[in-house]
């Protein structure tokens, strides 16, 4: 007697037959019939036609039958709203039933019927059930509020259910508390602004008490809710941590991970000197490792989270390398994640073990895994210098296996090793060249070509090798084409005598026969460089390359901090903040780690650290290769950057004639005939103009148009930064904000590997591109650079508001300084408000937000003031003359959307102005006033 019988029916009208049975007088037959209906439903068959007949069975004292009918109702009520009304009466009656099980069942089911008309009838019974004497009913009702909110949010608010729900957080029964928290969290997710979960020390205390007594699922809800709380000081943080720690021993992995999240977050507030901090670190390791012995799906999620934790606090798992060793029958998704973490944990102490493992993996069956293992060996070499030699020899061993994909991966990583340790391992080039023919993947081909070009002088037959690649030039991918172009130009510059024909061929292939604009542009740039100034060409193309950094794939620190707040969630699996992928995430509030309090140490905030403080354990992140500008000329493996090439060397753009002077004499009698016929029309003037612009942009900071620029001041004196002096200013031009820097090397040592980072600041200013300094900075050399900025970084209110904390890294150390930026770099070009709007807004902003300032000693006329300000995006909306005074009404808009309205009163003949500012965020007024002063007085 199994349920499979419910699936077998006679051929003649199944529905018809069921109808008859449902209307049967016999209870037992009815129940069987409903079971058949449910069985059909489970496999997705449409049995909605039986709606009235099934609903008729609802009035019964048989609980099983009732539940079955409810199951049916939940599924089909939406499609038959009018019929569903028929059920309402029974629900209302059941909510009064003496049996709490039936009351709860009724309120639970009603919430699942997603029909607007019914929801109105639901309110009264729900209100009663929320205050029911039986906790089982209350906890069911709490969830029902969340259901109702999903159907009709307005109704829930109007009926005051949210307040009742908040009251349930203080309920005496832990299960009710847990469900109330869960319901509120779900509602809050669709209402980020509403401060539903208003946590204070009292409610936190209640939650912590309930945490010990509720079910495992309730514990997850409560822990996730706790993680959103911001303790007021380190003592409170510690006491919460102490009460959460026992959860680390829970059998449910989700409870464990949620507890880890709370601890990781609150730990941020604890002083590292505390004994408790060390204890906590020790306690975190075992539960994380235990997660890895669970089912593979759990392991996967755990590993993704451990990946974040290892980046944030490597010390937790540094002794646990072995648990990440791969078993041959782990699912592939687990293997790949383990490998990633192994590399992150690799250090001098364990590198031998790691390498032995990686070598083992490189002979496995799974191609993706093998590739990643080979790549990992390369990353170890770059990360742990002492191991580089061993890594290289391991890679050579692997190349000997001649397994195609292994060889290709090995070549790609060896190229990176060359860049990290120049002039050390070039002896292996010969071995690499032997495998030239077997390379069929673009990345490997491009890497090999780069190697040949870079070390052309050491490879006797470099020209032959490159020539073989050139044969199929048009069939290659862009990556390979670009690389080949650069490599041949390098070769030509190194061995000009034998390779003229080759360089000519590649230039014409790139510029004339290709449809790819990047390739063409690069071709022309080389061509022009070679033809105008071969010496400059040499300087640019063969410039010394910056060394690549250790870890190219670290998550950016601010993002990492945000992700730490999302441990255990989908965001942690995707390593993206929820705003990046959760659908309908209207205005998700960015979470951030709490600042450390009450301790002497504050390594993470640059302002408190004296300059020259040892770099904290957070490594500066150097962007991946694709972004580095040096790549354009040297190593462009990523998508080609078509952006502004920065050439600090002065390239003479005057000579428009492509065939002019330099190259001709270099090439002797060979002549470029083809371009002279094709190029001029399309290229001559416009291109040179365009290129000129490009170089102009990069070379100096245009100060003709755009906002007022404050003269550069010294930000970081040389004595505080081991010889690096930085002075700079900010500018805004046609909407683009940039930070113009002057870096001077006053030390006796060459500086290289520059990188820059901003701390979170009030307006989210962040570098839009990495700091691009190609050539190392020689002693007493100065380089001028303009760093483009954007305002999409993370936001944290600073005091003063326009304070910016900057960290600059070079090969010597990391230096910190802070500077104030003039607010007008944030004034948008769209800051002109309509007259009507202006009036309305001015009235709308409450008077207490108005601030008045005096600007003295400014002998300018109203028109002059107006035009001067307009240059910095402060727009005059209207001008009036009232009682002999000129009144200017002005508006401006900050990059974060805040409008500031101004009234400027100018008394002819008097050099003092009165400035009244109105803004919804009055704290900016003072800084706007400062800006007025600076602009008007300069």
């Amino acid at each position, binding site marked *: 007697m199994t349920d499979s019988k419910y699936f077998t029916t006679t051929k003649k009208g199944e529905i018809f037959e069921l109808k008859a049975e449902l209307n049967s007088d016999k209870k037992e037959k009815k129940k069987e019939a409903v079971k058949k209906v449910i069985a059909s439903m489970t496999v997705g068959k449409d049995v909605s036609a039986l709606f009235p007949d099934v609903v008729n069975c609802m009035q019964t004292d048989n609980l099983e039958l009732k539940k079955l009918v409810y199951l049916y109702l939940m599924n089909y009520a939406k499609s038959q709203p009018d019929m569903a009304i028929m059920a309402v009466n029974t629900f209302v009656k059941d909510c009064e039933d003496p049996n709490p099980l039936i009351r709860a069942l009724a309120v639970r089911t009603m919430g699942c019927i997603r029909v607007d008309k019914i929801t109105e009838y639901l309110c009264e019974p729900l209100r009663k059930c929320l205050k029911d004497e039986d906790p089982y009913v209350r906890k069911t009702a709490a969830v029902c509020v969340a259901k109702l909110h999903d159907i009709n949010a307005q109704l829930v608010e109007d009926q005051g259910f949210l307040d009742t729900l908040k009251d349930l957080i203080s309920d005496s029964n832990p299960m009710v508390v847990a469900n109330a928290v869960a319901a509120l969290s779900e509602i809050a997710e669709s209402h980020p602004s509403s401060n539903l979960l208003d946590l204070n020390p009292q409610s936190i205390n209640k939650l912590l008490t309930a945490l010990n007594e509720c079910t495992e699922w309730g514990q997850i809800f409560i822990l996730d809710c706790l993680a959103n709380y911001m303790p007021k000081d380190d003592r409170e943080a510690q006491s919460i941590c102490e009460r959460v720690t026992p959860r680390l021993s829970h059998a449910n992995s989700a409870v464990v991970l949620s507890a880890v999240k709370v601890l990781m977050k609150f730990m941020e507030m604890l002083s590292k000197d505390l004994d408790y901090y060390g204890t906590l670190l020790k306690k975190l390791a*075992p539960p994380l490792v235990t997660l890895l012995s669970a089912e593979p799906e759990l392991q996967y*999620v755990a590993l993704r989270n451990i990946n974040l934790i290892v980046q944030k606090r490597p010390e937790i798992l540094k002794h646990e390398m072995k648990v990440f060793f791969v*078993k*041959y029958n782990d699912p592939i998704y687990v293997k790949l994640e383990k490998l990633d973490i192994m590399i992150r944990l690799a250090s001098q102490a364990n590198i031998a073990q790691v390498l032995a493992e990686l070598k*083992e993996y490189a002979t496995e069956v799974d191609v993706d895994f093998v590739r990643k293992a080979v790549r990992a060996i390369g990353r170890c070499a770059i990360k742990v210098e002492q191991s580089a030699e061993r890594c290289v020899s391991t890679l050579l061993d692997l190349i000997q296996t001649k397994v195609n994909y292994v060889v290709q991966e090995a070549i790609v990583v060896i190229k990176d090793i060359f860049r990290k340790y120049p002039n050390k391992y070039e002896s292996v080039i010969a071995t690499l060249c032997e495998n030239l023919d077997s390379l069929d993947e673009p990345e490997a081909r491009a890497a090999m070509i780069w190697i040949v070009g870079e070390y052309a002088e050491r490879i006797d037959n470099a020209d032959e090798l490159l020539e073989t690649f050139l044969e199929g030039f048009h069939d290659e991918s862009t990556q390979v084409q670009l690389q080949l172009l650069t490599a041949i130009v390098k070769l030509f510059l190194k061995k000009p005598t034998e390779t003229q024909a080759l360089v000519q061929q590649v230039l014409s292939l790139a510029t004339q026969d290709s449809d790819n604009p990047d390739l063409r542009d690069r071709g022309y740039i080389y061509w022009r460089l070679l033809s105008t100034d071969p010496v400059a060409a040499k300087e640019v193309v063969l410039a010394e390359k910056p060394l690549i950094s250790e870890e190219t794939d670290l998550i950016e620190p601010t993002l990492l901090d945000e992700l730490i707040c999302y441990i*255990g969630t989908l965001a942690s699996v995707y390593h993206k903040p929820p705003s990046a992928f959760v659908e309908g995430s209207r205005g998700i509030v960015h979470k951030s780690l709490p600042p450390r309090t009450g301790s002497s140490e504050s390594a993470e905030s640059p302002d408190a650290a004296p300059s020259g403080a040892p770099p904290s354990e957070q490594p500066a992140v150097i962007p991946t290769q694709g972004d580095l500008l040096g790549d354009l000329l040297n190593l462009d493996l990523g998508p080609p950057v078509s952006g502004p090439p920065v050439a600090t060397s002065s390239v003479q753009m005057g000579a428009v004639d492509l065939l002019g002077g330099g190259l001709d004499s270099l090439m002797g009698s060979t002549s470029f005939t083809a371009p002279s016929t094709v190029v001029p029309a399309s290229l001559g003037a416009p291109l040179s103009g365009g290129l000129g612009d490009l170089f102009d942009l990069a070379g100096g900071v245009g100060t003709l148009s755009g906002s007022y620029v404050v003269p550069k001041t010294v930000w970081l004196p040389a004595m505080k930064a081991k010889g690096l002096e930085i002075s700079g200013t900010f500018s805004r031009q046609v909407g683009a904000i940039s930070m113009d820097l002057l870096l001077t090397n006053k030390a006796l040592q060459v500086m290289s590997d520059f990188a820059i980072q901003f701390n979170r600041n009030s307006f989210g200013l962040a570098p839009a591109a990495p700091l691009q300094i190609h050539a190392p900075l020689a002693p007493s050399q100065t380089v001028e650079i303009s760093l483009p900025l954007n305002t999409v970084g993370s936001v944290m209110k600073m005091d003063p508001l326009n304070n910016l904390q900057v960290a600059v890294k070079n090969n010597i150390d990391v230096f910190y300084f802070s500077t104030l930026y003039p607010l007008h770099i944030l004034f948008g070009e769209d800051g002109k408000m309509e007259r009507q709007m202006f009036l309305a807004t001015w009235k709308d902003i409450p008077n207490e937000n108005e601030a008045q300032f005096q600007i003295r000693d400014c002998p300018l006329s109203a028109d002059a003031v107006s035009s001067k300000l307009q240059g910095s995006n402060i727009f005059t909306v209207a001008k009036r003359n009232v009682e002999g005074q000129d009144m200017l009404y002005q508006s401006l808009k900050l990059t974060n959307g805040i409008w500031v309205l101004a009234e400027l009163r100018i008394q002819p003949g008097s050099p003092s102005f009165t400035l009244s500012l109105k803004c919804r965020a009055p704290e900016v007024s003072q800084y706007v006033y400062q800006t007025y002063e600076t602009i008007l007085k300069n």
Partner: protein
Amino acid sequence: MIHSLFLVNCSGDIFLEKHWKRVVSQSVCDYFFEAQEKAADVENVPPVISTPHHYLISIYREKIFFVSVIQTEVPPLFVIEFLHRVADTFQDYFGECSETAIKDNVVIVYELLEEMLDNGFPLATESNILKELIKPPTILRSVVNSITGSSNMGDTLPTGQLSNIPWRRAGVKYTNNEAYFDVIEEIDAIIDKSGSTVFAEIQGVIDSCIKLSGMPDLSLSFMNPRLLDDVSFHPCIRFKRWESERVLSFIPPDGNFRLISYRVSSQNLVAIPVYVKHTISFKENNTSGRFDVTIGPKQNMGKTVEAVIVTVHMPKAVLNMNLTSTQGSYTFDPVIKVLTWDVGKITPQKLPNLKGTVNLQSGASKPEENPSLNIQFKIQQLAISGLKVNRLDMYGEKYKPFKGVKYITKAGKFQVRT
């Protein structure tokens, strides 16, 4: 929270769907099928898949995919844990968690799912509570039900549901009061070519079967609790007592449950009870290779190693194997290229050996990879970590229970590289 659940079998048919909120169309599973196709092997389907509007979180158990659909930010571990709980419940109710079992009991399955989750929030997942709400099917009961017309659904509120000990029902009564504990330890290890241990750790559990009347309060103490520094507890255990006294104090659930699981980490020395001598080699430009494996006891504390099974995933190029064994029997499945050697008991006087030739596909190049050996074994009456139960005390009830502790050591993921 969890929106919907689809059960999918290995051939890609959806054989059950359950929705806790809106009905989500079956077509959402197409993204899952796509991933399944890409993964080649069923075990390699990624557990979290994103689709344009939903996320699919799945587990693979007993040849069934449990695919859940979620729409908002939900902790994935929460979903995965819950899905495993669903599978456990099916196992518990129907004796097996298989497609046929689920189809045969589809109505109960539906009632269970409804009881376990409300609006995506877990409601009742403890087996004790569920069984009070919905009685498991038995042949006798279904016969009785069909005669008397009574239902297999409880109509009173389960007592455990709201108490502080939700895992235990009230009014438990047995004529024989018994408490059994099984200390089961699994050795996870990777042994390298030369026979040295790359990695080894012990995963232990204490599974209990408690049939005691009333509300017994138990304390279990160990001879060497120091060994247990990384432990996960059943919710019934009082954490504070453990912290202060290293004693497991708890009011047990009724019936079978896992009391604790623990890990003896790689920092401690782990005894490896067997060793393997092996030569697996393929000759260059030849269609054959050699295979020779001997297995012997190592640190087995004087106990017998039994139920030994060696499995080897041979390289793809292997066509057939021609072997002779001194003990036990072997099979080679030429389709999936898996060699299984059922050794049985190891007697130190005569070490089991399996050797012979490997035939390769003609024309295939010499296989690059070295197959790993997967070893299973069992040792009765031994917990390899040395963990020993000291005593079990019972408070709160007057009767004298019958107590028993059993130890067993098994191979977990025990791999020997060649």
